[in-house]
């Protein structure tokens, strides 16, 4: 990084800091719009487990709802801040175990159920992994919003570094990419620790069909 860049970065962050102080907002992120807020408030009603708290955005969601800013140079600092915040929230497995049962992991990856207003509070939430990823090559019905995970462990190896990265990514993908399309499975308690271990096994157990 050359001097000029550092200078402009400094200038930007100073300005951002100043505007935070002045307006309670970050520079160039879309302004608060009372008309929009009212439309959202009047537009939804709570139904079953889907309460109105679901449209109360956290910092990550607010930032990512403005893709123009989020992907801009000016958004860099905020992006890094959000990634750090999400990274810091990740917990390593309490029992030290990263790899569970790949067969259970496959079932979790297949299911896209749970957490809608037609579900009950005790409906088991699926990982919905196949919605966006290719995983077991035998499953032809897979989406492509995320990258293919076929051959995941075979290609990357099974080192602790790969294991930890994968654990973190499933727990909270926003730790690496602030506006990743992937849900924060641990943060919102979509999957519990054991379920994440099982999905880990689907990707990283050498016996899993993913690595055959």
């Amino acid at each position, binding site marked *: 990084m050359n001097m000029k860049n550092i200078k402009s970065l400094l200038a930007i962050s100073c300005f951002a800091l100043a505007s935070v102080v002045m307006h309670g907002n970050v520079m160039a992120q879309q302004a608060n719009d009372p008309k929009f807020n009212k*439309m959202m408030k009047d537009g939804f009603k*709570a139904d079953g487990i889907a309460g109105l708290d*679901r449209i109360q955005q956290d910092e990550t969601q607010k930032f990512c709802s403005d893709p123009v800013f989020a992907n801009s140079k000016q958004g860099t600092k905020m992006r890094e801040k959000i990634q750090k915040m999400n990274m810091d929230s990740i917990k390593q497995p309490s029992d030290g175990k990263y790899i569970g049962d790949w067969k259970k992991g496959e079932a979790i990856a297949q299911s896209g159920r749970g957490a809608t207003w037609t579900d009950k509070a005790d409906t088991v939430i699926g990982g919905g992994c196949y919605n966006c990823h290719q995983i077991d090559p035998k499953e032809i019905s897979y989406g492509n919003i995320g990258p293919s995970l076929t051959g995941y462990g075979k290609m990357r190896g099974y080192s602790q570094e790969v294991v930890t990265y994968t654990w973190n990514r499933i727990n909270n993908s926003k730790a690496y990419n602030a506006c990743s399309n992937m849900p924060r499975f641990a943060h919102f308690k979509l999957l519990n620790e054991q379920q994440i271990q099982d999905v880990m096994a689907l990707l990283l157990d050498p016996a899993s069909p993913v690595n055959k």
Partner: protein
Amino acid sequence: MQRKFTLGLASGMAAALLMVSSSVSAQNSATDDIAKYREMIADGNPSELYEAAGEELWKKPAGPKNATLEKCDLGLGPGVVKGAAAQLPRYFKDTNKVQDLESRLMTCMQKLQGRDPQEMIDAPFQKGPKKDMEAIVAYVVTLSKGDKIKVSTAHPKEKEMYELGKRAFFFQGGPMDFSCASCHGEDGKRIRLQDLPNITTQKGAALGWGYWPAYRVSSGQFWTMQQRLNDCYRQQRFPFPIYASDLTIAVSMYMAKNANGGTVETPGLKR
């Protein structure tokens, strides 16, 4: 096919070039087979059954005023149904609001027939007054089939609605951080085997907006655009969008305006 191949490469790992390209060709044959399947069911769209029922309801006196909907103004003047769906949503002077097809039909039911719009809003989809609404929508949209989508944002309220809709389209929330854009903001994406139109582009918006309302094979039901949006929000894990709320009309306005120049293919036949 070329595009999918490139995408497959981009998202795959360079180390697995061979593997990725072979699985992409398997995928292509799967999507080709799905295309064949769709072609096989395209003939005989059960929407026709709803359309016939809707025409009857349009012409049948109903409600406290025992009147028909034949004088309903959908934007092209009282009683003009042909081509009306192609120019909605739009601003209406009498209500001083931007309305989509369903909210406008509620206005007509209220003014002409004396029916209470709240009953329509509160009714579950596919039941009671909504069942009538669905049939009437099938009838109205069929009479725009083949027309060009031509939605205006000339009126300030229309322009405002479009901008609000755009913002709502990118609004993330819920326990999965989804917005409409999570699935409909990029080209060439799929959930499972379903292609996801990129609604931020004209081509993608026309593929989405132009084919709904539709008969939905998986549920065996005719779905209006309001129900289509409702289920999108359900899958987004959002709370329940209120029927014909400004939110739903704004998102519709965003899609419809983006789709301008595309063709109305409704009623469609969907998975």
